[in-house]
């Protein structure tokens, strides 16, 4: 007796519009969407996942680019890291471009997408701290009406993707001010973040927003440190800070993200991580205000 018969042919749908994709998912609730496959196929190869069917998102032209809407950019979930890394995109959202350029080796960047990065929600997802700092929101397309929620609600699981829903677009306010993304990997070649810092200056709201990636399950926002530093900045003047202020900001962010445990000494690895976050935050702020 052979077990070959049990291996059903992989069922793959390749819709060309969001509506078709949503319909395909509705028709087959066990189907799993796949964009670049750089996260999904690794799980399949490792035997962790055996999807009964796949809905490929690669042919949906409407989510492969971006458009402008009321002072914001509406990014398609199918934008690849490679595309986001290009100069025209970098002129628009510099921090997201920097994150995209650092996300894995070129082969991965050519295939991996913004949507996949968000839905995978890995602690080391490089787009995530940038989206958190930008206070981006995501537009979800599903069998019911589309809905828009803050990206942080999706990442924290407060408001997860519902069955049959697809991540269609990401709305990002265009700030027209400096923003940075810095990532420490411990090596020269491509690697996952040990820690990353996204920092954006928002002159309209007189805010500095910062998010730290890879040190916790989701990007962390050191709100007090943000407010403190925003208070130091002369928003109507040069907008620069003394190096000591940048250093203090770094320490502040690091202590907020890797807090002291009352009564216990911080383990060496945490001390090291704190030092890394402090250096990254200081550098990020320094560059943004340079």
């Amino acid at each position: 007796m052979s077990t070959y018969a049990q291996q059903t042919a992989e069922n793959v749908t390749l819709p060309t519009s969001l509506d078709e994709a949503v319909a395909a998912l509705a028709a087959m609730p066990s189907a799993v969407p796949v964009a670049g496959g750089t996260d999904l196929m690794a799980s399949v190869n490792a035997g962790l996942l055996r999807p009964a069917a796949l809905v490929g998102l690669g042919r949906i032209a409407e989510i492969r680019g971006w458009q402008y809407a009321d002072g914001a950019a509406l990014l398609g979930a199918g934008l690849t890291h490679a595309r986001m890394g290009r100069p025209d995109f970098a002129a628009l959202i510099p921090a997201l471009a920097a994150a995209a350029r650092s996300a894995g080796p070129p082969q991965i960047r050519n295939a991996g997408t913004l949507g996949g990065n968000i839905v995978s929600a890995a602690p080391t997802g490089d787009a995530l701290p940038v989206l958190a700092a930008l206070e981006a929101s995501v537009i979800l397309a599903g069998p019911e009406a589309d809905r828009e929620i803050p990206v942080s609600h999706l990442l924290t699981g407060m408001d997860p993707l519902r069955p049959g829903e697809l991540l269609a677009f990401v709305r990002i306010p265009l700030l027209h001010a400096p923003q940075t993304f810095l990532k420490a990997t411990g090596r020269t070649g491509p690697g996952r973040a040990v820690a990353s810092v996204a920092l954006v200056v928002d002159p309209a709201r007189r805010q500095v927003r910062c998010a730290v990636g890879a040190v916790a399950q989701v990007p962390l926002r050191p709100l007090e440190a943000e407010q403190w530093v925003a208070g130091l900045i002369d928003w109507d003047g040069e907008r620069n800070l003394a190096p000591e202020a940048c250093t203090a900001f770094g320490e502040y962010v690091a202590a907020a993200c890797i807090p002291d445990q009352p009564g216990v000494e911080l383990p060496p690895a945490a001390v090291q991580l704190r030092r890394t976050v402090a250096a990254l935050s200081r550098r990020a702020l320094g560059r943004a205000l340079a």
Partner: protein
Amino acid sequence: MSVIDGPGAVTESLAGGGTPHGIGTSLPSADAPAKTQGTYPYAADLWAEGLLWAAVLRSPYPHARIVRIDTGEAAAMPGVRAVLTHEDVPGDAMHGRLVADRPVFAKDIVRHHGEPIAAVAADHPDTARLAAAAILVEYEVLEPVTDPEKAFAAEPLHPDGNLIRHIPLRFGDPDTVGEVIVEGLYRVGRQDPAPIGAEAGLAVPRPDGGVELYVASTDPHADRDIAAACFGLEADHVKVVVTGVPGAMGDREDSGIQLPLGLLALRTGCPVKFVATREESFLGHAHRHPTLLRYRHHADAEGRLVKVEAQILLDAGAYADASSDALAAAVAFAAGPYVVPHVFVEGWAVRTNNPPSGHVRGEGALQVCTAYEGQMDKLAAKLGLEPAEIRMRNVLATGDLLPTGQSVTCPAPVGELLKAVRDADLPPLPDGDDESQWLLPGGTSGAGEPGAVRRGVGYALGMVHVLGAEGTDEVSTATVRVHDGRATVICAAVETGQGFTTLARQIVQEVLGVEDVRVLPSDTDQPPAGPAARGRHTWVSGGAVERAAKMVRTQLLQPLAAKFGMSVELLTIADGKITSYDGVLSTTVAETLDGKELWATAQCRPHPTDRLDETGQGDAFVGLTFCAIRAVVDVDIELGAVRVVELAVAQDVGRVLNPRQLAARIEAGVTQGVGLALMEDLRAPRGIVKRPSLTGYALPTALDAPEVRIVKLVEERDVVAPFGAKAVSAVPVVTSPAAVAAAVRAATGRPISRLPIRPQAAIVKPPA
């Protein structure tokens, strides 16, 4: 990218016109086109009609007693054709290179995470895997021995005890004391050979009751002998056929692959294929010995070494494997390529429940290089000398004694090598106005800050022996056949990618003047050639090929010489033509052959060596080779990120046989060393291998690999070696980690006593 410069560095321009052939040319590898086009057949590509798929069940624990194994459910699964455990091994239950201490399948006790317990053959790989997972094993988990320092006193993991070997080396006067003393404790992590292609194999049963194993073996005859003994068959009933080897930095395809495959094929009567997952590969094959080294160096006020004391502890994992050899190298080279009148070393290799250690290029020699070079830097700092200067004052030369009492008879141009790297131009600092375009430590991720980057320059001198040591019978046999104006080489020396077949072709071209030379694939029907390790094949198999080719040459020329009344020596062959010294005679090889075939088989067996005695003394090595490396690194002293900017290499090669291949071997070697220096460490806390994947275990990529600059190749012939050539692959691996560590030390002022260098070790704390 490598750059070769310096006068006399290369004997032939890399861009020379025409098809190069013969010794000293950059003859390209015959496999290269197929490999680059993806048509080269590797073991994982093998196929046989009606084949079954194997899966191996491996222990999830590093140390446990097996209470019960129930294969019933697995065997009953549809599609499953056989399930084997220790009860199904018809021959020897245990095997091993020197000590038969490793079971085919664990019986009562498992001794490391990933040890094979059972194997399944089924009609689909997923079925085989599911069935393996359905085998019920009841374990009584035991406390693992994971600290090699505690192995001495721990419950024995083997009836012989946990001490695999102890070498106390005594050389000189133990009471001598130097004016300056420095001490250090060094640790080297567990490097995985990480062969880039999947470890795989196919076993095909034979009608005569035997079996053929198609595997990417690096030592087919040894593997055949082990397999035959475990299968309970005569050796001539097992044939190992070497398939395309996708990378081998040490041994490939641990016995946990070959033996279950053969047993399953014999049991089912069907061909059986196995392709290891990356995870199994990390769990199964041998790693570089994690090593703990304690050193005390004594010097006089001028920085001349007086005495070296060392304690070296190798973590062998549960089985003896090649640990005895690694220990001999570590102890013998404990002081490095320096003249030291008094040397006292205690070396131990012990059993633990950590992942198995074994042969990985430069074993033993690499770990001590890291330590003795760390000590040289400490001495230099203490005496206020330049690191290159203190080394120069102590370099070994031909005629000096090793601490084993063996006199160095081969070329040992250590000082010349050091001078070459010391005097080479330093690489420029990053320049250009756009700082964002600089490749800083931390790479392209944007975190690097020029103001936090310090550059450091460090030196290391390394040495390694070539060929097996301590009385190993080093021998190889080769056959050369000439027919229709072309030649064929038959030799069981495995082409692992190291370039042996190219070398064999060059040798035959040189001796016989025929350009068209083919090398047949290796299998165990051919006479043994021994393992592809320790630069052996350049020497012993290259030597055997040369001898066989010379015998054919004599057979070819003898009748001509007799006819013309001159001696064979007065005839030359080049480009398929035979001419006499005076130009009177001129004919072709094809014409002289006149349709005949000429065959000759020859052996090469270098002079014998001794086992190190109870005080670590003896002529244990056939040959030695040396290397000097100057590393230039940039360190982000706040993040601890290190980028190796350049490695300048000077190497003692005897003779350049193939310049391009030689450069590739050096580049590959130093890059493997950089991997160990900066990132490669298979972590196994409490004996459990963590993240056994190529995401979890980082290897150097093109961005991590430095510019490799070969500044000098010293071509002082080693008169006892064929062509005077030395093995070239291991010594750059041995030397580069120490050079990188020295450069990081120089950049940061931190001690750097542990490899890989963790970021926290390279951070310079701002003054409080």
